[in-house]
Structure formats: structure tokens, C-alpha cells
């Protein structure tokens, strides 16, 4: 299929399958990213997010299914796809032994820019990502946040139409995280389509127009952030009675009031319940007070990814990341 100017989808993947030995990393994943929008791919470690990105960015061959970027097949037209994409990952990284400037000049030259233009583009991007002061230093001396910004700059040298960001903020401090978010918003304003993988619900919430939730190599939910939040109950209420003996009583009460399944943590003596409607809170307080249950804790917070998963799948998100990553390494 040729590039179709009227097509509104920048990325289309259908039935992607990838196995590493006996482990199935992707068990038939479909996803669509609309042109000029941010698609958030949300999932715990080892869910298959990175594998999906590697396939879409032509780094990995799928065992089944197909994928197109701007209408170009990632297998048959990999060379065209590579001209259209930018990639920032946990893996695709910079040359530690070169300066920030030379890393970007190298990429510009590899993309066919004449020397002067490659130099100008490097300076422009370093300025944009606030790296001008560190431009001449070798990347070895960069902090985590600076590396991530340089990585992002590197993926933009060729002015990509589609940008893959694989966990762009994992391991960053809150300030650097907000910086990266602002940069992503700026890119989207310029018309770039972004596929963003993340473990953080709030990140997907902040940036994504559409979200795909992946677990164990399968898509378990798709929708806008609002749609997903509605499905997961919005917020979580944590209640801990002063007397741990009354934990069961609190759980039964909350279940009845929230009309949803609650989780009792016997280790910390806390009951957590999804709360869709904030009007529920005064009622809970009243009912607890009527029964004379004294409280050690009463907190409302946003649901964690764990809870989203619990609601969507009925099981906890497990940490399979290192295992899958190792399998991928050995089979490569």
C-alpha cells in the first residue's frame, strides 16, 4: 500500500505476534495512532510495549501480523518507514564517547544533510533542549535527564512525522519529567504523531489522546483517558480502622456503598475501594461514624496502574520486565 494523503492514521498495526523462545511477548496486538495525535501505550513491565515499538520502528521482525507507518509496511518498506520515524527508547541511545554536538551532527550527516546544515540543526536542537552549555562535553559526563533530552533531540534531527517514545520519563526526577512532557506537547503542536509507551497512568492521562492498555502481550482496553478512568472508577479510597479487628466490617461496608469490589490488605490493615463519585465520601464517613469505627487513615488518591490492572483484568500487574528483556537479548 502506498502513502495515502487522506489516510488519518499514522500507525496501523493488526494482529502483531512475537515470540522469544517459549515466551510470547505479543499475542496479537492491534493498535492505531491517528495522525497528529498522541497514542499512549500503557502497561506494566514486560507487557510487550517495547517489543511492539521495536517492531513498529523496523528493529524487530514480527512472527505474525502486519504494521504500517504512514501507509508503508514496516517489513517490505522498512527503508521508507525509517525516513519517516524518530525513535527514543530505553535502548536506542547515543555514543558515549562523542560530544552532544557531534552525536547530532553524525545523525544529521547519516540522514544526508550537508555538513553546514547538520551543524546548524545540531545547534538548533541543543538550544531547544537546553543543552547548549553541555554541547561540547562528551555524553559520558551527562546526567540522566540530559541524556534523555539529547536522545529526544537525536530522534528529531530528521524532522520525523511519527515519533516513538519508549518510556521517555522512566527514571527521571519530577522536574525533568514535566520538561519532557512540555517538549512532547510542543512536538504534537507541530503536527507530529507520537506513540508513547509508559508505565504511568498519569503520564498517559497528561499526554495521550488515545490509550491502549497492554498486558501479557494482549490489548486489554482501548479508549480516551476519560473513558478508561470511568471504567476504573476514577479514584481510590483508602480506609484503615484504628482497631484492625474491625477491618472486615469496614470492607463489607465499603463494598456495599461503593458498589464495587474492594481490596483488603491484611499486612497494612487498609481497605481500598474504587470511588467513581466523590459524593460517596460523606456517606462513608457518616456510616463509619454511626457504627463507632475510629479511623487511623482516610485517604483519597488516584488509582495506581496496579489498580487499573486489577479492575481491567482481575489480576495484579506482575514484574516480568527483566525476564522478557533477557529472553529478547538471547534470542536476538
Amino acid at each position: 500500500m502506498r502513502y495515502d494523503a487522506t489516510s488519518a492514521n499514522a500507525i496501523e498495526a493488526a494482529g502483531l505476534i512475537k515470540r522469544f523462545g517459549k515466551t510470547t511477548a505479543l499475542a496479537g496486538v492491534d493498535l492505531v495512532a491517528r495522525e497528529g495525535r498522541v497514542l499512549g501505550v500503557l502497561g506494566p513491565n514486560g507487557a510487550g510495549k517495547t517489543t511492539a515499538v521495536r517492531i513498529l520502528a523496523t528493529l524487530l521482525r514480527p512472527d505474525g501480523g502486519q504494521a504500517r507507518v504512514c501507509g508503508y509496511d514496516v517489513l517490505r518498506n522498512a527503508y521508507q518507514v525509517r525516513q519517516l520515524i524518530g525513535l527514543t527508547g530505553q535502548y536506542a541511545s547515543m555514543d558515549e564517547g562523542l560530544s552532544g554536538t557531534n552525536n547530532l551532527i553524525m545523525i544529521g550527516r547519516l540522514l544526508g544533510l550537508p555538513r553546514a546544515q547538520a551543524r546548524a540543526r545540531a545547534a538548533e536542537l541543543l538550544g531547544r533542549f537546553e543543552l547548549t552549555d553541555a554541547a561540547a562535553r562528551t555524553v559520558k559526563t551527562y546526567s540522566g535527564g540530559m541524556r534523555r533530552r539529547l536522545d529526544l533531540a537525536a530522534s528529531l534531527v530528521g524532522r520525523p512525522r511519527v515519533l516513538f517514545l519508549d518510556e521517555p520519563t522512566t527514571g527521571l526526577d519530577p522536574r525533568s519529567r514535566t520538561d519532557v512532557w512540555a517538549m512532547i506537547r510542543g512536538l504534537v503542536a507541530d503536527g507530529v504523531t507520537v506513540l508513547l509507551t509508559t508505565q504511568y497512568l498519569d503520564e498517559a492521562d497528561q499526554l495521550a489522546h488515545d490509550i491502549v492498555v497492554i498486558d501479557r502481550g494482549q490489548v486489554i482496553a482501548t479508549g480516551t483517558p476519560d473513558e478508561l478512568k470511568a471504567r476504573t472508577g476514577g479514584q481510590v479510597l483508602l480506609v484503615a480502622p484504628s482497631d484492625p479487628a474491625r477491618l472486615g466490617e469496614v470492607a463489607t461496608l465499603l463494598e456495599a456503598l461503593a458498589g464495587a469490589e474492594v481490596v483488603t490488605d491484611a499486612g497494612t490493615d487498609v481497605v481500598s475501594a474504587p470511588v467513581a463519585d466523590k459524593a460517596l465520601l460523606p456517606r462513608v464517613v457518616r456510616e463509619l461514624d454511626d457504627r463507632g469505627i475510629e479511623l487511623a487513615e482516610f485517604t483519597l488518591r488516584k488509582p495506581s496502574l496496579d489498580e487499573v490492572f486489577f479492575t481491567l483484568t482481575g489480576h495484579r500487574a506482575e514484574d516480568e520486565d527483566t525476564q522478557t528483556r533477557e529472553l529478547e537479548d538471547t534470542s536476538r
Partner: protein
Amino acid sequence: MTAVVAPAFPAPARRLGLRGGLRNTFTLTWRSVLKIRTNMEDLFGLLLQPIMYLLLFTYVFGGALAGGTHSYLQFSLPGILVLSVVFATLGTGMMLNQDITTGVFDRFRSLPIARWAPLAGAVLGDMIRYMTSVAVTLGFGMILGFRITASPLSAAAGCLLVLAFALAMCWFSALIGLMVKSAQGVQWFGFLVMFPLVFGSNLLVKTATMSGWLQAFVKVNPMTYLTEAERGLLTGGPAATPALRSLLWALGIFIVFAPLAVRVYRRKT
């Protein structure tokens, strides 16, 4: 109105020609050279290793092995030239390995460049390292008193021969670098394979001084041919036969290991 939206971006090129691939290769060669220049440890290693070998072997072994440092230097320098360059080929494997483990190769693969350019760029960049090694060994050797007694043309041929051999050996190193898990693995492999190969030869001592079974190995070791050829080309003496044998060895190593390395590299990409 239902007008077709014009694409804001030009349609991507369909393929990259040979010229484009060569341009990619030169960019990556530039990168390798830049790395040597900016990385002080690497530069030191490249410059100091031949100097260290020359000083140690000449002054530690010279008196014992040849009864004098000057006569030993005339004998050993061609061998040290071979040793420096052959050990330098390990760098190719280590750099490739580092590029893979740090994700630099994945970055290259996501770019619209020739598939073979990163490999070709690495090898070409390393040729510049080997040339540096040859220049330092000869230059410092001459400061210590080594004299080229053969014709300049013959000496130039000697330099080219050792470089040609390195060009073949670096594919072997590249293959190892692509296969092992870490740069340390390359070093270990180098130690276990390169050490016996390099020192189990007539590189530093005369074959006649060794025991029978060792002589048998030394006599078929390509390092022996290469060293003999270098002695002939730099200080005079029969060079044609060992030079031809060295070239055949280099060709054989290249024919076996270059396609293997490319295959492993392609499977990874």
C-alpha cells in the same frame, strides 16, 4: 468541500544507492576517528602500547636473547610491529560490542542508512587506528636505533602487508564482538586465542631455540610467516615466499570470517 489534503511532507525515497551507502560509511568512519581523538584512554593505549612493547622487549630481553639491545631491536621490531597491529584488531570487536550493548546500533538501524554502513564504517575507522600503530612502532623504534636497511619501497610494502593482514584479522575480531555478551568477553577471547597465536611464533625469539613440538606449531602459525615477511621487507633478506603465504592467510581469514561476521550482524539487524 471534500478536497484531498495535500501531503505536507515529501514522499520518502524508495531506495538508497551505493553512493549513499558510501557516504554513510564515511560519516561513521569520521565518528570512529573522532572517538580516538576525544577519548584520551583510547589514544593513550594506541600510542603507548607499541612504545611499551618496544622498551620492554628491547631492554628486558635484548641482552639475554641477542647479546645486545641494538641487534635484538633489528630482529624484534618487525615482530613487535605485527604484535601491536594484531592486538589492535581486538579494538574492532570491542567497539562493535559496545555499540550493540549501549544501543548505538539500534539507533543506526532506525535510520534510513545502508545496512552494511555501520560495519564498514567501523572497519574503515579501525584501519586508521592500525596505521597509527604502525607509524608509532616504526617511529619510536627508529628513535631507539632501529634502521630500515631494505629499500623504502620494500619498507612501504611491509607496512601495507601488515595492514592487509590486520584488515583480515579485524573481521575475526568483529565476529567475536558480535557474538559475545560484553566487551570483557572480547578481551578474554583475545587473551585465549590471540596470545598463544602471537607469542607461539618466531615474533620475539628464533624458532630454532624452541622444543620440537612447539617448533611444529610455530612453523604453521601465520604470525611466523607475517613476521618473517616483515623482517625481509624492512631489514632485507628473503621476503617473497613468507609475504605470499601471509597474504594467502589473510585472504583465507577474510573469506571465512567476513561473511560470517556479516551474517551474524544481519541476523541481529
